[in-house]
């Protein structure tokens, strides 16, 4: 009987002094209802969960169920985002409101958008907001373009994690510029996570195989025909991609190389 090999598995990862095991971060938007939201998040195994900050409906639905009941802050690390903000000023205000909402919790996802059509990050405003938030004591995980220079500048400002898009938010096109992502990964001293554009499990696995610390997604799960099943698929894809990265893939070859030995063939 052979002894089982002792294979070192994945280690926890860290952002802003916090430790996490799951490398899949999920959003809470676009679900049918809060039951589906919590079932999908549960199946994803995610520990970090994003949400948005919006004006409270006044005078109607006073008993409307609260997102934070479906995703309790005692169980998950909640990551408020600044989605919908188009200026540094609005993004900073939103982060301050979120910090108040969560009793001083200071980890935020910064995203400052450029236009409605692409939801592409406005990096000028993003850089401004990042500086102000870091100065104000926030731990900033920042959504950005796949520009390696901008990613480095955000790291220099003091962002806790840099999160380039794989492709446009909600597009499901996967990683459209892996070469650029590779440069960002090579240069980074903070965790790099792909945020936005993931369509299916192989997209997430590819990001992890390249060495990303994690992947953040929302639509890929919420807009699958079966969100809970897709959440489970994503959990496996992230784990498989991570282990493939740690295992270090075989080199690519121009020619075939037989897996079976040539010696002892019966035809010679």
């Amino acid at each position, binding site marked *: 009987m052979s002894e089982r090999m002792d294979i070192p598995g994945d280690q926890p990862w860290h952002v802003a002094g916090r430790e996490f095991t799951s490398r899949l971060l999920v*959003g*809470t*938007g*676009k*679900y049918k209802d809060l039951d589906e*939201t919590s079932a999908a998040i549960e199946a994803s195994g995610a520990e970090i969960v*994003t*949400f*948005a*900050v*919006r*004006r*409270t409906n*006044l*005078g109607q639905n*006073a008993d409307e169920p*609260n*997102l*934070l009941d479906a995703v309790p802050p005692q169980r998950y690390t*909640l990551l*408020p*985002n600044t*989605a919908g903000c188009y200026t540094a000023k609005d993004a900073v*205000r939103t982060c*301050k*409101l*979120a*910090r*108040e*909402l969560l009793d001083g919790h200071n980890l935020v996802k910064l995203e400052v958008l450029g236009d409605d059509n692409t939801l592409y990050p406005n990096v000028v405003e993003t850089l401004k907001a990042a500086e102000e938030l870091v100065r104000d004591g926030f731990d900033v995980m920042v959504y950005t373009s796949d520009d390696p220079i901008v990613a480095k500048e955000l790291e220099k400002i003091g962002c806790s994690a840099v999160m380039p898009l794989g492709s446009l*938010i*909600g597009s499901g096109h996967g990683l459209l510029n892996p070469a650029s992502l590779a440069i960002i990964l090579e240069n980074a001293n903070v965790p790099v996570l792909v945020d*936005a554009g993931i369509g299916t499990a192989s997209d997430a696995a590819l990001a992890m195989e390249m060495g990303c610390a994690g992947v*953040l*997604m*929302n*639509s890929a799960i919420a807009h699958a025909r079966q969100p809970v099943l897709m959440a489970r698929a994503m959990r496996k894809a992230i784990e498989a991609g991570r282990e493939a990265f740690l295992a270090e893939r075989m080199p690519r070859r121009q020619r075939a190389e037989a897996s079976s030995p040539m010696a002892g063939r019966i035809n010679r």
Partner: protein
Amino acid sequence: MQIQLNGDPRALDGEPTISELIASLGLTGRRIAVEVNEEIVPRSQHAETRLAEGDRVEIVHAIGGG
């Protein structure tokens, strides 16, 4: 007096505190955050912070999002 509440004009009787405004909206005990004239008013100060004519008040909460 009149204030701007979540972007809409709103008439209030007297000069209520933020706690009183929240109570009148049926939001007491809900997980919300309040900003007056673009400055956060911490929950601990809601009871003692009185609103004034023309204040711009935002009351927000958490919703689903990516």
